[in-house]
């Protein structure tokens, strides 16, 4: 094998990757929002604060929701001290909500602002459910910020632990489904190449960022943006495999060395994402605050939850069927089992691995789209879920993809259920602890066959 080629190709591919990121980024700062009517405040503003005031009437049933018209939000420029206390304030203007409860206000420039909801302008019987009436927020160049005031009770009043458990299990299952989508990709890649991919989380972030770019910046419809994001994710995966990992495999780079390369890649991509997003927490333009429907007093779902769950189940089912029924699927399983034997029987191992990367990255991007709702679109998505992904894969064990899906689902449910006994901030620690325990006690996974692996 020619030794020079991988290096040359690697360099070219890194350049290409940089170019792709540059194109993505160049579009980022141009995130100007077009609106039918000019917002209040500074007419030439490029920085905005906006929000929607809706009276939820103490339920989470959409039919009860009523937008609040004519409420006033006082916008002030403020100076904070070290303890984030306001030490100086200067009024900038007042935003008033329209008949849909929306308000938008153009700010005079970057800086720190406070938005105060004037409770006296709310209709009789409507008040803040919880949270402060004053929110302070920093604004960077070209930023826009959504203020959320909770009117009416937003959280359902729950009485018993059991009552909460059902609610939590449903939330957890939703998260678990999303994690399952990523976990399938991660374990397919691990299965066929032996690579422990620490940069898999960045493929997830990639999906969320592309969706944001397409939906919020270029204004494409959300559903179309999802398709764009998945396709872009697949292309990204193909690029990574053919530009980086395949040349490394040809060079005979060890698995541990490759694992450290994935760490470098993770570091690189995460910082590039942060650079392009300026470290902001972004939001998609559509389906941001769907109203919930109560199911028999047990749990609340929204149309968005339903769509995400349905898509996840369909995609997972499709992957399962494809792996077990198609030629390529069988080839993939053969490569996972024994690459040399697979190659000897005439399977194009490189092609199979390439397909696995494309599939895995596409799935990761799709999961990223969903996580963009649950965690907000930010450069940190990948970092936040990476270890949970590993935990899910280990919980599922070495076995089939089917077991991995169950493992991920189970982990999602366990994480949320665990908040019944541990503080919510520690819930992920529980999942990691579970990861360790599983690796020690049942390295073959909860459902896996007994087999010596490590």
């Amino acid at each position: 094998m020619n030794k020079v080629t991988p290096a040359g190709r690697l360099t070219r591919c890194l350049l290409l990757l940089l170019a792709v990121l540059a194109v993505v980024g160049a579009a980022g700062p141009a995130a100007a929002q077009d609106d039918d009517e000019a917002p209040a405040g500074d007419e030439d503003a490029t920085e905005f604060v906006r929000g929607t005031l809706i009276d939820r009437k103490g339920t989470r049933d959409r039919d009860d929701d009523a937008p609040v018209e004519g409420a006033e939000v006082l916008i002030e420029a403020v100076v904070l001290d070290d303890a984030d206390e306001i030490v100086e304030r200067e009024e900038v203007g007042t935003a008033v909500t329209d008949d849909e409860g929306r308000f938008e206000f153009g700010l005079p420039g970057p800086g720190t602002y406070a938005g105060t909801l004037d409770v006296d302008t709310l209709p009789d019987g409507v008040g803040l459910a919880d949270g402060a009436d004053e929110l302070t927020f920093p604004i960077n160049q070209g930023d826009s910020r959504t203020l959320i005031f909770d009117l009416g009770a937003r959280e359902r009043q729950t009485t018993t632990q059991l009552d909460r458990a059902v609610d939590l299990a449903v939330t957890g299952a939703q998260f678990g489904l999303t994690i399952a989508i990523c976990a399938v990709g991660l374990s397919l890649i691990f299965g066929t190449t032996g690579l422990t991919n620490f940069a898999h989380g960045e493929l997830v972030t990639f999906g969320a960022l592309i969706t944001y770019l397409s939906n919020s910046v270029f204004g494409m419809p959300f559903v179309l943006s999802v398709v764009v994001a998945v396709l872009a994710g697949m292309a990204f995966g193909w690029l990574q495999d053919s530009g980086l990992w395949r040349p490394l495999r040809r060079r005979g780079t060890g698995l541990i060395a490759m694992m450290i390369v994935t760490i470098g890649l993770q570091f690189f991509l995460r910082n590039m994402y942060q650079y392009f997003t300026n470290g902001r927490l972004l939001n998609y333009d559509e389906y941001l605050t769907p109203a919930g429907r109560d199911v028999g007093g047990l749990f609340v779902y929204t149309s968005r939850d339903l769509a995400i769950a349905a898509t996840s189940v369909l995609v997972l089912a499709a992957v399962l069927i494809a792996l077990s029924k198609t030629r390529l699927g069988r080839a993939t399983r053969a490569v996972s089992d024994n690459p040399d034997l697979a190659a000897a029987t005439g399977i194009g191992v490189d092609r199979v691995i390439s397909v696995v990367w494309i599939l895995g990255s596409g799935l990761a991007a799709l999961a990223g789209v969903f996580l963009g709702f649950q965690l907000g679109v930010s450069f940190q998505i990948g970092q936040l879920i990476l270890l949970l992904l590993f935990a899910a894969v280990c919980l599922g064990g070495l076995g089939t993809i089917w077991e991995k899906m169950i493992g991920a689902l189970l982990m999602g449910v366990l994480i949320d259920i665990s908040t019944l006994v541990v503080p919510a901030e520690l819930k992920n620690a529980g999942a990691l602890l579970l990861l360790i325990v599983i690796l020690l006690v049942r390295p073959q996974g909860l459902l896996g066959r007994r087999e010596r692996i490590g």
Partner: protein
Amino acid sequence: MDLIVSPLHDAFTPTAISFVLAAIGLNIHFGYAGLLNFGQAAFAAVGAYGMGVAIASFDLPLVLAILVGLIAAVVLALIMGAPTLRLRADYLAIVTIAVAEIMRLIFSTTFKDYFRARDGVSGFTDSFRALNPLSESMGSFASFSRNDLWVMMVGWPLVILILLFVWAIMRSPWGRVVKSIREDEDAVRSLGKNVYSYKMQALILGGMIGAVGGFVGAQGLASVQPDSYNLDFTFIAFTMLILGGAARVLSPVAGAVIFWALLSFLGELLTMLSSGDSPLIPPEFMTPDQVGNIRFAFVGLALMLLMIFRPQGLFGDKKEIALDAR
């Protein structure tokens, strides 16, 4: 001017010392024993928290507080190592990362009376600073404050002492066994050595050195915050080690100094190019705020390229790197 001064400055700060020590610890784990410990941040964290909390909350004298930090590191090594040292390399990596993340979550969310959540522990530097022999009227030297200088005056000799120790112990029979475990575990086992016990000793030793790094870093910054000990801490220490070349006594120091100097040079250069009235790099492309991301992106890129083209680093020996999956 800053292009030269600032890298020289940053390569020797107390923070740099703390990373040097973390990397020396990692060198024992990864370089000599072949243990892929990705949880070095946890050792630095328990060291720093152990010392900080012992002084801030329990008013222990400095020496006892340092002892508390070291014991905490030993306990962590036992807890982390006891179950995991039998695992394969990549599994060990995942478990150690998970432990480090759990520790970070614990420090940032529990026992808030002691760990002070995200604000971090502070107010533990008095006893150390009281020992400072430098005169109080000296002002600053080479833009280092009197306190920083004192931390450096203790820290760098400490680094040298620890390096001497590492050099000596790696020449000893113990060191030879540890190195041969990296090369071939089964062969060592067949010679009747208790591989597990040696691995554990290596983990404890490297972890304690990491905890010393935590002490120095904490004294330098005068505070201990949970987020300073995230995954990035370990990865940066790893990059330094690999830059210098694993399994060489001096390489963590060389790697860390070169790393900080380059990082600082890049930061200064990019800041210079992107600020001012008519910057060379227009603000649409990069503002001074974004310099941090760009230079850390370079760290990632550097780690990738190093691992691909020169896994033995600047001074290492390719034969001595434990990079084959076992």
